[in-house]
């Protein structure tokens, strides 16, 4: 069978010149007089020793193949951004020197959609989230690992933006990213970029913070307005045709927790960052683990009018909406004032306030005294109204 070329479907004009090839030639200009073999070999050696540069605009499967392209990606993107003496060794694992004592160790994966949103991106979350998990154990965060799962075709420029945010967030949090990994999966098998970070931190204080440590009479504090991150991401998806002036609250909390622990010491029973499930979920964990009642005041909950308004429209309760830079602290009553003052004195805790108290009865329940003058339960959420928020 012969093909009728006359009716072939045109597929657009082709390139008039191979730009990438010309660029490569220009990059090596000035060496054309070399002809002898050793001169050529020397030239190749020099080219290979040059600082690696990633030339592709998009991630390809070869970036995950472990060969030259992977090496270029690691050196040109990750090492360039995260550079520190431990990472530079590019060994299979990082050797860490830490003072003797207790360590906190945590891990978290990030799949937020969209990757970029007002106030931050997945990179900020990946660093701050793990830093915060360490901070909530009462630890001083030290070292992080970063694993990337990239989708074939993901723009290198986006990856560079994410990595730059991670570097900035790590610097702000005083931690080093000391080891990492990259995998690439075929187009359609992932949604752009997923990141997993793990972290170790030093437990310098003789404290054990635990959700099971709350006692009747204790006070429940929150470090600022709740629900900003979740609502920001929800609106950034653009599916709802709602616009609002709001940004994510993503921030590292190790500084504010250190101030809090300095001020209230062993009066602090537990710390939690109010991520997925929001403040309501944390209070439920405390009620169950400690066998106490958590009694919250609806009027005292710090919620921005824009978060309240968006939640009202979407039919969700801001108490369940994620934050990425807020903590809940349960503190003994005699240290509560000192604790609140310490939170409010920190730039990330200006909006800190008391939202409730711990009671003895009924155990395991979170009760809300409503602004309307009634009482209701605040239960664990069933289903997920806001998937992929972090």
């Amino acid at each position, binding site marked *: 069978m012969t093909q009728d070329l006359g009716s072939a479907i045109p597929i657009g004009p082709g390139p008039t010149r191979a730009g990438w090839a010309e660029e490569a030639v220009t990059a090596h200009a000035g060496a054309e007089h070399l002809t002898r073999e050793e001169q050529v070999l020397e030239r190749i050696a020099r080219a290979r020793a040059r600082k690696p540069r990633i030339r592709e605009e998009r991630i390809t499967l070869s970036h995950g193949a472990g060969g030259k392209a992977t090496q270029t990606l690691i050196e040109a993107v990750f090492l360039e951004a995260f550079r520190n003496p431990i990472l530079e060794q590019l060994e299979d694992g990082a050797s860490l020197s830490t003072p003797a004592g207790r360590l906190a160790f945590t891990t978290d994966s990030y799949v937020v959609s969209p990757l970029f949103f007002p106030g931050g991106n997945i990179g900020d979350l990946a660093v701050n989230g793990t830093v915060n998990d360490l901070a909530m154990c009462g630890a001083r965060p030290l070292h992080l690992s970063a694993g990337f799962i990239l989708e074939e075709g993901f723009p290198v420029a986006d990856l560079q933006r994410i990595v730059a945010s991670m570097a900035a967030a790590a610097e702000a949090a005083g931690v080093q990213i000391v080891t990492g990994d990259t995998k690439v999966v075929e187009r359609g098998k992932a949604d752009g970029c997923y990141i997993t970070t793990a972290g170790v931190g030093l437990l310098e204080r003789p404290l054990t913070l635990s959700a099971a440590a709350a006692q009747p009479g204790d006070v429940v504090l929150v470090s600022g307005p709740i629900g900003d991150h979740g609502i920001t991401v929800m609106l950034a998806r653009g599916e709802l045709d709602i616009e609002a002036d709001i940004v994510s609250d993503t921030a590292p909390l190790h500084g504010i927790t250190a101030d809090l622990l300095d001020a209230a010491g062993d009066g602090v029973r537990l710390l939690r960052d109010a991520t997925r499930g929001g403040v309501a979920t944390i209070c439920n964990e405390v009620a169950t683990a400690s066998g106490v009642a958590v009694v919250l005041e609806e009027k005292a909950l710090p919620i921005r009018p824009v978060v309240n308004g968006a939640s009202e429209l979407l039919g969700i309760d801001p108490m369940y909406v994620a934050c990425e830079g807020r903590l809940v602290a349960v503190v003994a009553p005699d240290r509560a004032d000192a604790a609140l003052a310490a939170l409010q004195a920190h730039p990330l805790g200006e909006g800190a306030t008391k939202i409730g108290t711990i009671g003895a*009865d*009924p155990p395991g*329940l979170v009760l809300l005294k409503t602004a*309307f*003058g009634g*009482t*209701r339960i605040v239960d664990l959420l069933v289903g997920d109204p806001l998937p992929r928020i972090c």
Partner: protein
Amino acid sequence: MKYVDEYRDADTARALATKIAGLCEPGRRYSLMEICGGHTHTIYTHGLEDHLPESISLVHGPGCPVCVIPMGRVDDAIALAEQDDVIMTSFGDMMRVPGGRGSFFDSKAAGADIRMVYSPLDSLKIARKNPDKRVIFFAIGFETTTPSTAMTVLRAAAEGLDNFAVFCNHVRVTPAITAILSSPDLHLDGFVGPGHVSTVIGCEPYTYIPREHGKPIVVSGFEPLDILTSVYMLMQQFADGRCETENEYARVVPWAGNPKALGVIDRVMEVRDTFEWRGPGWIPESAMQLRAEYAAFDAERIYQVPGVRVADPKACQCGEVLRGAIKPWECKVFGTACTPETPIGTCMVSSEGACAAYYNFGRFSRSRVKEATSA
């Protein structure tokens, strides 16, 4: 929040509560049904019952559109969604409603293309983007949402979008009230009438309730003070010996309804002879279907849906809950076999369902809690 906070004020509520208590005849008990699931949700999220004297009890009615969908209808929808060329769209509420063979979520996990939408118009967008697929919108709701489905059909017809269809489950509120009024175990004194539905149909359609059945009804808004005011208006009627249809929600509900919305419904849809409700069973003239002129957009005419009737699980007492015969916690499986996580009956699925509202927000002894929160 403007236009909201003034309807949630605790001091106004307390003043109103005192007036309500003053209208209670000693020794008399009052049973009032709020028909609409939105009201049920408000009552629980704001702890409204704390403002009512013990002699007044609120009974939660059948006005949760998700709760009244029978299992057979869910199975029919899943059968449609499982067709290779079909994309099913649905409101999020519907996703977890169990049918005889699982829920939309189960079917989605097994490979069916079922997508959550916030508006029926989103389904048209999906239909435009997927010309090789048929997009079927699982239309659900009382008269509140019926006009938007009808408008969507008109839009699709105007655009010639022939790969869009509706699986119509729109129900009508007054036949359901009639069904409740004719049940033998009825002991209701009056109704808090639905608000959103009434923005469309108005108050006139309810006037037969006081006239023929001797029960007063007050159409109510959705803020807690609206509902408390409606209870007050009912109590005032009892005290005065009146029995009327009144409108508490006059800021939104015109007495004659919204003629434009009613016109759109009438253009696209007609009343079905009968429709099955979860709980009350078959109720004559209680639902809508697409008119023959719009058959090309009617999933029930394009496909032969199985139409299998699935009996409710024996232990499930949603039917009795929906007609107010028992309180949610009086059901044999409430909170044990049937929870919001693993709902057996539909009342446990939607946040507007009486059982889910009670389980999520009211699952405690009020006297015990008074002590815990009085500090």
